[in-house]
């Protein structure tokens, strides 16, 4: 092929491929062509990702201003809200002679909704546990599989990935659980239970105002799957919300919800009761978790920064290590703790009041409104900035 006929083309990058790049800490240069307000609110992050923002409407007369700022040697990903503008700009960059140019399939909208299932490990009693990483938003949910049955914990709004995953693994979803009433994302728990015939379980103290029927999670009343071999053991750990419940799965995996994260701890203010719940939060962390075996694997409902992801994209830690490394578990003075979790908190998640109302069944926004409400980062931890 001669130089003249050599065809360069704009390539598509899937959210899955981008997840691999973020988790693998690979190098990538991103040109985000959304408007400045959207970019400053929320963007793709990664250890070795360099990102710049030039709105596409500033490049309508040509992409030269962008080319000047893009290193020729690196892979380039062009990103916009949906997809159209990134293709439009990406094609012009390719025409200008650049190689290795990609656009993000489905844009930030799809990035925000993409779930990557990653196996955490095998269960001693038989079965497996998977973490569903919603990398664009920092949300983590879980599926425990054993003997043809499954339990889903902290389901994301998009329920199809769980249904497909269960079908692929030949399991029936029997129970759907939420660790607490979420304020940062719309729970898919109720919808998933309706779609699969599973029972939906909530902590009763978080569910006092819900408008639908549910099963009450009660401390020490275990749920069993896989012919009764694998147990999900609820432990009452209030503090992020008054009902927050931790699940000990198969005596090895500690699903801490929004109480304890890998690099931070939960904030007590999203239901408007920071001052009241500080004592509960402290007791859950320093009284209950501190008495548990160091070897338990902590699996939280969120991550704050992509540095918390391991090479496969998974987020987990040994409980004992968190009592050494997590700043939120190393505040010995109670007054300092109180101040840390009530003052100088990050901004509250986008539309968190409406999200809580939706999760209680009090309002029924349509699909587009739900998507809109969930835009942006999760901000459920004390130390996220």
């Amino acid at each position, binding site marked *: 092929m001669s130089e003249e006929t050599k065809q360069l083309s704009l390539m598509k990058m899937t959210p899955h491929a981008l997840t691999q790049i973020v988790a693998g800490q690979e190098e990538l240069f991103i040109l985000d062509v959304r*408007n400045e*307000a959207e970019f400053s609110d929320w963007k793709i992050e990664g250890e070795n990702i360099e990102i710049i923002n030039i*709105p*596409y*409407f500033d490049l*309508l007369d040509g992409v030269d201003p962008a080319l000047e700022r893009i290193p020729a040697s690196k892979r380039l990903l062009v990103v916009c*809200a*949906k997809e*159209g503008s990134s293709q*439009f700009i990406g094609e012009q960059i390719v025409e200008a002679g650049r190689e290795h140019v990609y656009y993000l399939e489905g844009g930030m909208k799809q990035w925000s909704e993409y779930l990557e299932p990653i196996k955490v490990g095998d269960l001693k009693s038989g079965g497996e546990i998977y973490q569903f990483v919603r990398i664009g938003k920092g949300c983590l949910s879980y599926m425990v599989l054993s003997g043809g049955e499954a339990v889903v914990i902290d389901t994301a709004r998009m329920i199809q990935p769980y249904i497909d995953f269960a079908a692929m693994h030949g399991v029936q979803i029997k129970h759907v659980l939420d660790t607490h009433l979420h304020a940062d994302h719309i729970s898919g728990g109720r919808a998933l239970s309706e779609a699969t015939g599973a029972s939906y379980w909530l902590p009763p103290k978080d569910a006092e105002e819900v408008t639908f029927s549910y099963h009450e999670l009660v401390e020490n009343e275990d749920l069993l799957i896989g012919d009764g071999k694998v147990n999900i053991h609820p432990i009452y750990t209030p503090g992020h919300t008054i009902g927050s419940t931790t699940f000990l799965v198969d005596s090895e995996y500690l699903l801490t919800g929004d109480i304890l994260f890998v690099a931070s701890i939960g904030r007590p203010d999203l239901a408007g009761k920071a001052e009241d719940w500080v004592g509960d939060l402290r007791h859950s962390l320093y009284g209950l978790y501190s008495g548990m075996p160091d070897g338990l694997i902590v699996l939280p409902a969120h991550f704050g920064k992509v540095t918390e992801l391991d090479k496969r994209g998974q987020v987990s830690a040994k409980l004992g290590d968190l009592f050494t490394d997590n700043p939120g578990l190393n505040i010995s003075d109670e007054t300092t703790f109180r101040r840390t979790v009530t003052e100088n908190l990050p901004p509250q998640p986008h539309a968190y009041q409406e999200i809580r109302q939706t999760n209680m069944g009090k309002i029924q926004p349509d699909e587009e409104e739900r998507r809109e409400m969930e835009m942006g980062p999760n901000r459920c931890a004390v130390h996220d900035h």
Partner: protein
Amino acid sequence: MNADQVLDAKGLACPMPIIRTKKAIEELASGQILEVQTTDKGSQNDLTGWANSTGHHLLESAEDNGIYTFWIKKK
């Protein structure tokens, strides 16, 4: 509001509403008003950003039943 020109960009996805707006405004004289109708929600923020960065005046915008209307005065 009285417009000198009306651009129907309904049903078009990003980036087309802005591209069409840019072309339409190029055909107007300074001080004339372009009315733009879109159905793409993103065009709200983007038209505002585009007007800011080009210096054209976004005089007013309105939403009615999923249709967004903008009045832009050419600088």
